[in-house]
């Protein structure tokens, strides 16, 4: 057999001489030492060896695929024992099997490389499909999954980023104008408030608020606005709604909204706005503004009770799944005038109501959608209005996977809107008016990917896979530097990448509150209250928020002089805006009063040098904070140090957020930290936080300091019903002065938002109150793709280097392995039998 093999081999003239020689040597070696089981290997090109095998017909050659780099290393193992009893067919099959394995491995490797490369030269680390390159898509990230997308419930900032693009309330804020200005969205024009007295007599615009019994807002919407395509509107040939009587069988292959094959749409009507206002009172929906709105919208509270009764009756009659048709229950304060007009009746005068009309709470909901989603079986599949919104806005939600990605696509039925032609003088210079008058939206698709951790988010932004990013404290120094004038700008590395920084003071305030019900910081008797006021003022001077902003917020904040942040009417800049009890105006800027002023106030309060004048005991105050990690220890130590300036001992009481809220609600906290984001750009939205009737204890309001000052309360009641005017500003000034004097808050600071944008991201103007901004944005997808390729060229040397190191480290191991395998059982240098036993069990 062996000779035949050799003869055949010799006859195969087409084989290279080297191959024939080596194969021949192998066969000869076998002849000399037929019992040898020592394998030996040959490194040959795979094709050459295969050819050798087929031509030689040598059934003893068993080869197998070994570790491989791009070449293949093959071993020839002619163990007599392993092959002598094997039939030629077995060996041939084995060879086939090995060939299959080899081919499979090769395929897998090729597939892996193809997958990683994206098959078309896409960057290896590109998380998006290659087919999306250069498409007009905006890429963003979100950390927290939205809980509610139903506009009646949604109130969080991460939710409104989606709902504001889909739903169209009647009004919106002008994108470029400041101060924030309301303009029509779906409404044809801004509604004008109509005032009426108790006898339903129309009053003039400037009528005294006390005379006004109710206000009517009549809102006309633009005709021709259409909803996005949606299964709820789909109709059959007879004109009946196709998916409004779904059976379990119909739902058997439905897992998401897009599984419904047919969609339809219809025109937006005034009824849809009325329907949504009714939904604010729906007993199964928990609208966060129901409490507030039921105080204003005529009949809304009673309507809620009517619906509650109806639900109970339905539950008894038809079970818990019965549909509550709101169209069957009229709401007194809201009515449809005609197809495109509706009226809302408000108790008394409430000018801030106009701002609410710019929020998704007042966006239209078609009854078809409400009816469609209420069908049994859909909620179990998470097909709800809370999950799949239906709107008329520029975008529609086409993929809702809040665990992975939310995708918005252009609404094909959007009525169209032109980019604003007016703005602030600086907008022209910033290139924000280049697109004036052009139809929006500019972006076709928005892909928002869930990235919970800041590190991957930040790195993907730097790689160009997200178009914009916030700046975490970890990456602040990498991204931002301060100029000689103290102005924040991007670092050189960011500049090289074309990244730009946009900053804006947020319409919010972070403050430290004093619980006015506490005997030490609030006082009980008149004398005690006066002493406590001085104590609060002293602390206000001592706690240096300029230092806090610099150390702990990387300079991202503006020290507050009162509750109203910049950009809101009532806020004043410059010397007239400073808090004269805490600051002096020196050399054109506010300068915190010296600590001796605080010590003097403290002594007047009855605590000279931080000691109680009566008892001689040191003054100890308690600071309630939510549970914090080690990272916050430094800020709490800093806070202790600030109180230490007055020789006051500050005890930090850390607890979880639930307990913290409980303490605030029950009035058990002494000093605490909190904040407020504006709902709308009106000073009322901040001043109400210190309105007596709104106090937490007893009233469950938003006044966490439980501050109540009769004059302030009376001024608030007067101010809240007024339109913006000089007279109103005067009242606001007076109110702010009362607050500064009483110091129920340590005013803290107004945070400053810093955001980074890539060079291809255009038309960006920071706007904290308006959230429907995506329609204004523009993306240069070509530039983005070019930069992504530049920044993300794969670095291959680590793979090659790693393989070389692996191979090199395997060589000595293989040498030892072969030595042992070839070696005899007992050798001179090998341990003796007795040693071999002990060699085993040692860990």
């Amino acid at each position, binding site marked *: 057999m062996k000779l035949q093999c050799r003869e055949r081999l010799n006859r195969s003239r087409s084989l290279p001489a080297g191959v024939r020689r080596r194969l021949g040597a192998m066969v000869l070696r076998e002849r000399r030492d037929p019992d040898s089981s020592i394998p030996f290997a040959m490194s040959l090109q795979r094709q050459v060896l295969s050819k050798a095998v087929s031509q030689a017909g040598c059934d003893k050659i068993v080869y197998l695929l070994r570790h491989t780099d791009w070449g293949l290393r093959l071993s020839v193992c002619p163990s007599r024992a392993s092959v002598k009893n094997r039939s030629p067919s077995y060996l041939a099959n084995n060879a086939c099997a090995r060939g299959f394995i080899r081919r499979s491995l090769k395929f897998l490797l090729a597939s892996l490389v193809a997958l990683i490369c994206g098959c078309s030269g896409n960057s*290896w680390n590109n998380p998006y499909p290659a087919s999306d390159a250069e498409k007009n898509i905006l890429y963003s990230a979100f950390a927290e999954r939205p*809980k509610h997308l139903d506009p009646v419930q949604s109130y969080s900032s991460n939710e409104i980023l989606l709902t504001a693009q889909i739903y169209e309330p009647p009004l919106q804020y002008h994108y470029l104008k400041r101060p924030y200005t309301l303009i029509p969205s779906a409404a044809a024009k801004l509604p004008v408030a109509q005032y009426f007295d108790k006898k339903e007599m129309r009053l003039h615009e400037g009528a005294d608020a006390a005379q006004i019994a109710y206000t009517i807002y009549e809102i006309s919407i633009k005709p021709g606005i259409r909803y996005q395509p949606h299964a709820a509107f789909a109709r059959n040939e007879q004109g009946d709604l196709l998916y409004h009587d779904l059976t379990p069988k119909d739902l058997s292959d439905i897992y998401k909204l897009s599984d419904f094959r047919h969609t339809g749409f219809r025109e937006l009507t005034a009824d849809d706005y009325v329907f949504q206002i009714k939904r604010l009172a729906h007993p199964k929906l928990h609208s966060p*503004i129901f409490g507030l709105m039921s105080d204003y919208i005529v009949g809304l509270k009673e309507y809620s009770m009517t619906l509650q009764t109806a639900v109970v009756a339905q539950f008894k009659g038809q079970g818990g799944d019965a549909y509550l048709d709101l169209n069957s229950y009229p709401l007194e304060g809201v009515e449809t005038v005609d197809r495109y007009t509706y009226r809302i009746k408000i108790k008394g005068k409430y000018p801030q109501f106009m701002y609410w009309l710019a929020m998704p709470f007042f966006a239209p909901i078609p009854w078809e959608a409400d009816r469609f989603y209420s069908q049994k079986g859909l909620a179990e*599949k*998470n097909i709800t209005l809370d999950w799949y919104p239906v709107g008329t806005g520029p975008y529609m939600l086409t993929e809702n996977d809040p665990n992975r990605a939310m995708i918005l696509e252009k609404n094909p039925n959007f009525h169209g809107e032109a980019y604003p032609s007016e703005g602030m003088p600086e907008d022209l210079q910033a290139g924000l008016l280049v697109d004036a008058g052009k139809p929006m939206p500019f972006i076709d698709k928005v892909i928002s990917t869930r990235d919970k951790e800041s590190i*991957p988010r930040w*790195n993907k932004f730097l790689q160009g896979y997200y178009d914009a990013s916030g700046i975490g404290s970890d990456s602040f120094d990498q991204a931002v530097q301060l100029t000689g004038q103290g102005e924040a700008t991007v670092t050189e590395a960011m500049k090289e990448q074309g990244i730009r920084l946009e900053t804006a003071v947020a319409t919010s305030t972070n403050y430290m509150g004093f619980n006015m019900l506490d005997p030490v910081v609030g006082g009980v008797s008149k004398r005690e209250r006066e002493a406590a006021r001085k104590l609060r003022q002293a602390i206000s001077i001592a706690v240096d928020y300029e230092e806090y902003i610099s150390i702990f917020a990387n300079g991202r904040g503006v020290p507050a002089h009162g509750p109203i942040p910049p950009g809101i009417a009532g806020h004043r800049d410059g010397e007239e805006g400073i808090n004269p009890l805490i600051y002096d105006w020196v050399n054109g800027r506010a300068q915190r009063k010296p600590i001796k002023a605080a010590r003097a106030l403290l002594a007047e309060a009855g605590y000279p040098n931080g000691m109680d004048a009566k008892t001689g005991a040191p003054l100890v105050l308690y600071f309630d904070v939510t549970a914090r990690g080690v990272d916050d220890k430094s800020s709490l130590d800093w806070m202790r140090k600030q109180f230490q300036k007055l020789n006051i001992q500050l005890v930090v009481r850390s607890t979880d957020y639930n307990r913290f809220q409980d303490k605030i609600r029950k009035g058990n906290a002494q000093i605490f930290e909190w904040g407020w984001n504006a709902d709308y750009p009106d000073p009322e939205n901040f001043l109400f936080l210190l309105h007596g009737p709104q106090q937490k204890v007893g009233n469950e309001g938003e006044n966490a300091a439980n501050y109540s000052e009769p004059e302030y309360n009376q001024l608030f009641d007067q101010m809240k019903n007024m339109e913006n005017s000089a007279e109103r500003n005067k009242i606001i000034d007076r109110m702010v002065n009362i607050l500064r004097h009483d110091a129920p808050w340590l005013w803290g600071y107004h945070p400053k938002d810093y955001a980074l944008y890539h060079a291809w991201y255009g038309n960006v103007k920071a706007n904290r109150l308006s959230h429907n901004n995506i329609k204004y944005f523009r993306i240069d997808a070509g530039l983005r793709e070019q930069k992504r390729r530049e920044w993300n060229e794969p670095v291959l040397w680590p793979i090659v280097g790693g393989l070389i190191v692996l191979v090199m480290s395997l060589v000595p191991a293989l040498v030892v392995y072969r030595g042992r395998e070839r070696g005899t059982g007992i050798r001179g240098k090998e341990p003796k039998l007795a040693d*071999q036993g002990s060699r085993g069990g040692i860990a």
Partner: protein
Amino acid sequence: MLNYIVRRVLYAIPILIGVNLITFTLFFVVNSPDDMARMQLGIKRVTPEAITKWKQERGYDKPLMFNDTEEGYAQFTHTIFFEKSAAMFAFRFGRADDGRDIAHEIKTRMVPSLAIALPVFLLGLGVYIVFALIMVFFRATYVDFWGVVLCVALMSISGLFYIIGGQFLISKLWHLVPISGYGSGPDAAKFLVLPVIIGVVSGAGASIRWYRTIFLEEMGKDYVRTARAKGLPESIVLFRHVLRNAMIPILTGAVVVIPLLFLGSFIAESFFGIPGLGSYTIDAINSQDFAVVRAMVFLGSLLYIVGLLLTDISYTLVDPRIRLE
């Protein structure tokens, strides 16, 4: 064997009740139903009426464990604990506090969790065993010594470091794979490479040492000496005889975790943006969603019990001397 399995299933019931009780107690020590309502309804403008209504709708308006307004069995059954726990045993997990169906979420999130956990488990098991056997083969040489040193070093590094370091090196510096994300179908492969490599490497130190110890113990046994005396090559001794005889301790550690693979990894899923069950559980804990936390703990303990049962059964497959009676 059937009797044994039935007995074990019956044992599982009191264990699951106990786990439920402990989860319930621990959760409600930290959170009250009011806290849960506030967390779901938001921070701003939450009225006491809205909280009351939210609790009523979800059955959190009842006493926690004992209802003294009722009589007889109702004192125990008309409580939050009973009502929330009883449905669990029928695998009716109910709805999350945000209204979404938990069973649906579990079903959809199980696949991404498995997409990472399964390759990490299988690849890891193979790699660890091979490396451990190599170290045993080269025992008492520099390969073994430096192998152990490397294992100890690998064990000493935090799992988070592997993730951040891996993302920094492989994705950020070398641009070889995406830093984070997840895709469906074949597109998922490029997202899984990094988490799988990191998963295998981060577990290598402890596992290789563990398997090495097991194999070394086997190496001292008589059958190994007999195999050598027969003239078998060392590779055959190790991979055929030692590996087969070391299967019991290997199975003890490996089979028990197989069902738990469905639950995914808390940290890795968060860092790599994998929408799996680990990430779901963390989100639920952060948002104080008791319904989800309870369902996940129940599922975890159930799968652990299943894992233990499978381990026992697998013993009989690898060792014919073992009978389950």
